[in-house]
């Protein structure tokens, strides 16, 4: 049984026209799906539908996961500048009514998992871009979500940092058993993190094809050098340019 499903979901913004669809997508437990498409195709809109933050103008969204079981990571870390790192990570728990002492302890554990336990009293302004994104990741993990949604999370980071974060994300994903949907416009990144890459047409985005990435996990830098990786990148790029031309 899938965790979340979009069925012919179409989103039209008043005054701005159609942003998405009709688009079909189904997310199974524990899988890692990458959404790839040209900018403006509605990737982020699809993600917000899966998060329950928006409702489709037409079509259906079935969310089997509860509201507290979904976490979102945005392109910018979106941390509250007036809160310490630890308080930022604890925020979802505090809002859910968890006791402060327990929330702090769980936030500390989540920070430890992303390798930032010594920065727990730092403020976001004192963190590098990569560290801030790790904090955002810790905040997404602290509620132990079953569905982890990431909207171009590493797009603003340099290449080395984004590769390191992709590795950390993969090991966290494998540990937690959450399903993850990863929106990106970077084909190689999509292949690296996902078991299934869904290609979208230019906006309003529709399903343009799907590439399965058969590779053992855990993946590491060596995976980028394998023939499977190259084949998948070429297949995805080809599907993407076909979608753009159509």
């Amino acid at each position, binding site marked *: 049984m899938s965790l979340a499903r979009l069925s012919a979901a179409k989103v039209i913004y008043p005054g701005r026209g159609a942003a998405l669809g009709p688009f079909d997508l189904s997310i199974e437990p524990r899988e890692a799906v990458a959404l790839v498409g040209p900018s403006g195709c509605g990737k982020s809109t699809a993600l*917000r539908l899966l*998060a*329950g*933050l928006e409702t489709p103008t037409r079509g259906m969204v079935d969310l089997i996961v509860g*509201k*507290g079981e*979904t*976490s*979102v990571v*945005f392109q*910018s870390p*979106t941390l*509250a*500048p*007036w*809160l*310490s790192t630890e308080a930022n990570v604890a*925020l*979802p728990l*505090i*809002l*859910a009514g968890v006791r402060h002492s327990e929330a702090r302890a769980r936030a500390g554990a989540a920070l430890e998992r992303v390798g930032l336990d010594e920065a727990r009293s*730092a*403020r*976001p*302004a*004192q963190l590098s871009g990569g560290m801030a994104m790790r904090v955002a990741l810790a905040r997404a993990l602290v*509620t132990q979500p079953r569905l982890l949604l990431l909207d171009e999370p590493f797009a603003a980071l340099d290449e080395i940092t984004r590769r390191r974060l992709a590795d950390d994300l993969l090991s966290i994903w494998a540990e937690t058993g959450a399903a993850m949907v990863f929106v990106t416009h970077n084909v190689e990144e999509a292949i690296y993190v996902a078991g299934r890459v869904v290609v979208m047409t230019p906006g309003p985005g529709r399903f343009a094809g799907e590439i399965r990435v058969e590779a053992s996990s855990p993946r590491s830098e060596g995976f980028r050098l394998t023939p499977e990786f190259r084949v998948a990148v070429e297949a995805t790029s080809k599907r993407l340019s076909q979608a753009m031309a159509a």
Partner: protein
Amino acid sequence: MTRILAPWVLIIAILAVWEVGTMLGHVPAYLLPAPTDILTAFVQNLPLLAASGWRTLEMSLEALAVACVFAGLLALSVSLNRTVDRAVRPIAVALQVTPIVAIAPLFVIWMGVDHPERAVVALAAIVAFFPVFSGAARGLASADPDLERLFDLYGAGRLQRLARLQLPSAVPFIVEGAKVASGLAIIGAVVAEWVAGGGGAQGLAWRILEAGNQLQTAKMFAAILALALMAAAVHLAFVWLERRALVWWRGR
């Protein structure tokens, strides 16, 4: 170095031309006193000027406090309810664009002719009200949209959203508004003293009026100098406070 020197060189040049000009041109002292005469008047009247300056400062800061309380409460209700927002905005704008001098006599009547200081505080508070109100209202509506989405996702309630998102997001805007308002409060107090001064409201503007009526022009200039020094000190204090507040807010 030139950045620090340039204004001082200009100031000294102007003062020198002024001093020599009044000396050689035989300008009567009631028309334009020499800078040295002004300095003498300033030193001689220092206790009175300091006391009057303190009075003006006191009334300005009281007005600022009153304005902050009312503007804050109004901004809060405006941010909680769109209908209140629509209802309040035109009145707030009308209040802002009405010249303070025009409504000053009304306040003198309302506050009682025996209490001019109340009229001064009320009038200065009206002048200081708008920047605090618009800053707070804008700040309360300016939370990061992605953070708003996260609060949606985590099912935050109305009060949680206000206390943990909107109010903290508004802090830099409120501080900025208070800084602008501090300068306006002094201007408002001086203008109001002009109209309503006397009795318990004998501040620097009153000293200027008094000296002017007696044609003691050097004393007028001395009071203006005291006023400028006080306003500059208040401005610098609020710039410093704003910087401290922002350091506290974002941790650096």
